[in-house]
């Protein structure tokens, strides 16, 4: 510790006499760290916001009445290991729907903190004023579905709960309603492929411009589960179970565990969004590469400052070595120089970055006429990452000339000076 203080003292003295160069190097780091915070704050903030929307907009796990692989032929199980090849078998028509779904629902609800709701989905055709449109109708339990997703936030003209008051109620998208010329309170003629026809009254519209929630699409519609079962002529049948769990990050593991038990396809939000999540990883790699490049450029200032210091202080190095300082002491002294610039630069960079983030947070941005507030990540992890990266860059930049200083032969310098 005493040695460190000695080296720190000499390093600080070196930096103080080269004020301009030290200042430029420090400013370089400060600007690098500041932009690191601003860029990563925006990118990570928007990513977190996007993932949060992904998580909240739809159930964390959806159980579907389908399996990942076709069921095995009984002969293969009856004669395990036998040389059996079966071709051109006409598959048996399976009755769609989740078998024993109440037990499945109970199992899903057994996950700590989980909410699970049954649902029956199918295609219908909706007609209004001579116009028809295909719809994907989701028969849901409004009380539970409202707790599972943030669909409620996208609704205009009514609420999800209104489906309970009106068993013939339906929620369609606003763009579709606009195309058909329909409004809340109008009645659609809804017909299913099974032949059933039902008049359904629009109780609310889902609006894509309501950015609070996730917009499922123009052709998605919601109705009461019982009504859908009647429409599809499938009483007491559900073909999906929607699950929300306490920790969304555990959805993948929980889905895999339950799928192994039940055989049905349990699809987590991560699986549904795998392509997007992979894209985010690529985006992060690009972002950190760019930020890393900024810091690397900033570290050139440190390299120049320390390198010049080593060149200027060759005589001091020689006398320190003659006095009894080791090569490692000398290396440490110049590393400390770089580190000091890195630390001071990072501190100023934190202040600069905070100001940039503050400016971004209050930037008067609009999207489609509505005020837009940028989602920013201003958490300590960003500051830690920026600080650690700048210090690492400073150490690497200082290490190269410091190593050179450590290898200086004092005799060569003393001979030259004599």
């Amino acid at each position, binding site marked *: 510790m005493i040695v460190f203080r000695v080296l720190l003292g000499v390093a600080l003295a070196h930096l103080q006499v080269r004020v301009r160069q030290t200042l430029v190097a420090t400013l370089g780091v400060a600007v690098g760290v500041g932009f690191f915070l601003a860029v990563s704050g925006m990118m990570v903030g928007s990513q977190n916001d996007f993932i949060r929307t992904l998580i909240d907009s739809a159930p964390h796990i959806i159980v579907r009445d389908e399996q990942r692989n076709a069921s095995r032929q009984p002969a293969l199980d009856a004669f395990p290991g036998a040389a059996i090849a079966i071709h051109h078998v006409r598959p048996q028509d399976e009755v769609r729907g989740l078998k024993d779904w109440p037990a499945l629902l109970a199992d899903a609800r057994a996950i700590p903190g989980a909410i699970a709701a049954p649902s029956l989905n199918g295609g219908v055709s909706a007609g209004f004023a001579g116009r028809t449109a295909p719809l994907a109708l989701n028969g849901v339990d409004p009380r539970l579905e409202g707790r599972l997703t943030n669909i409620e936030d996208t609704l205009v003209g009514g609420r999800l709960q209104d489906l309970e008051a009106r068993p013939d109620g339906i929620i369609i998208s606003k763009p579709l309603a606009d195309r058909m010329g329909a409004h809340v309170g109008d009645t659609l003629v809804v017909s299913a492929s099974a032949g059933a026809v039902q008049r359904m009254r629009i109780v609310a519209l889902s609006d894509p411009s309501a950015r609070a929630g996730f917009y499922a699409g123009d052709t998605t519609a919601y109705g009461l589960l019982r009504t859908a079962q009647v429409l599809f002529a499938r009483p007491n049948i559900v073909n999906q179970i929607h699950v929300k769990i306490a920790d969304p990050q555990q959805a993948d593991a929980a889905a895999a565990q339950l799928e192994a038990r039940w055989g049905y396809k349990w699809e987590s939000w991560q699986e549904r969004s795998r392509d997007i999540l992979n894209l985010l990883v690529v985006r992060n790699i690009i972002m950190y590469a760019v930020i890393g490049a900024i810091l690397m450029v900033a570290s050139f200032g440190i390299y120049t400052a320390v390198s010049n210091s080593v060149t200027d202080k060759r005589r001091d190095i020689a006398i320190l070595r003659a*006095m009894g300082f080791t090569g490692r002491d000398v290396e440490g002294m110049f590393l400390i120089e770089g580190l000091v610039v890195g630390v001071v630069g990072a501190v100023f960079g934190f202040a600069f970055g905070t100001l940039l983030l503050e400016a971004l947070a209050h930037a008067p941005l609009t999207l489609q006429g509505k005020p837009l507030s940028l989602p920013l990540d201003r958490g300590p992890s960003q500051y830690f990452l920026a600080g650690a990266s700048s210090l690492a860059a400073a150490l690497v930049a200082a290490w190269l000339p410091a190593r050179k200083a450590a290898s200086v032969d004092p005799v060569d310098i003393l001979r030259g000076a004599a």
Partner: protein
Amino acid sequence: MTAAIEAEGLTRVLVDHAPVTLIQDCSLAVEAGEMVAIVGPSGCGKSSLLYLLGLLDRPSAGELRIEGAPTSELTDAERTRTRLERIGYVFQFHFLLPELTAQANVELPMRRLGALSGREITERADALLMQLGLGDEVHRRPDRLSGGQRQRVAIARALANNPKILLGDEPTGNLDSANTQIVIETFQKLAHEEGRAVVCVTHDAQVAAAADRRLSMLDGRIVDGE
């Protein structure tokens, strides 16, 4: 009695390109309490011999003992430690760190050794500077001191860890006669009163005359010694 410095057949050959013999078969012994001057024409190897005696350079052949302990097998770290604890250097140019005050320069070796507390280090630095007549200059930087004062600060720094051996490489080379006399008297006092072994490489007849013994060098060899 064990000699403070004992060299036997020291040879130093540079082998970078064509081999160059800097020092050849030099043997000498310097007792504690003795002041020895190494004299000779420029380029005869005086400074090279001093660097070998001060463990700054490694001999190509021969053995050097510091206070009876052989040094040929010492690692670089052990040689550095020996320099720190037992050897003080004074050069022709003061080589003080220009950013530090006189006091801080003298404190450096003590702080590196770490044997004393911070307060004790400062007290000892002040005492050494006082002893060398620099009591009023402790907080001055080298650029605010005269040449003689700087060299005395360098001597104080060389004595900081109380080494038994003091090596001077043309310590008066840049001084006027008055300051040369001060340095000579200081070296004599360090040898005769404090019992240190003092070895000075010098061109200065005044210094050579003040030494207890003179070793003459020519072409890397000690050719004459009283």
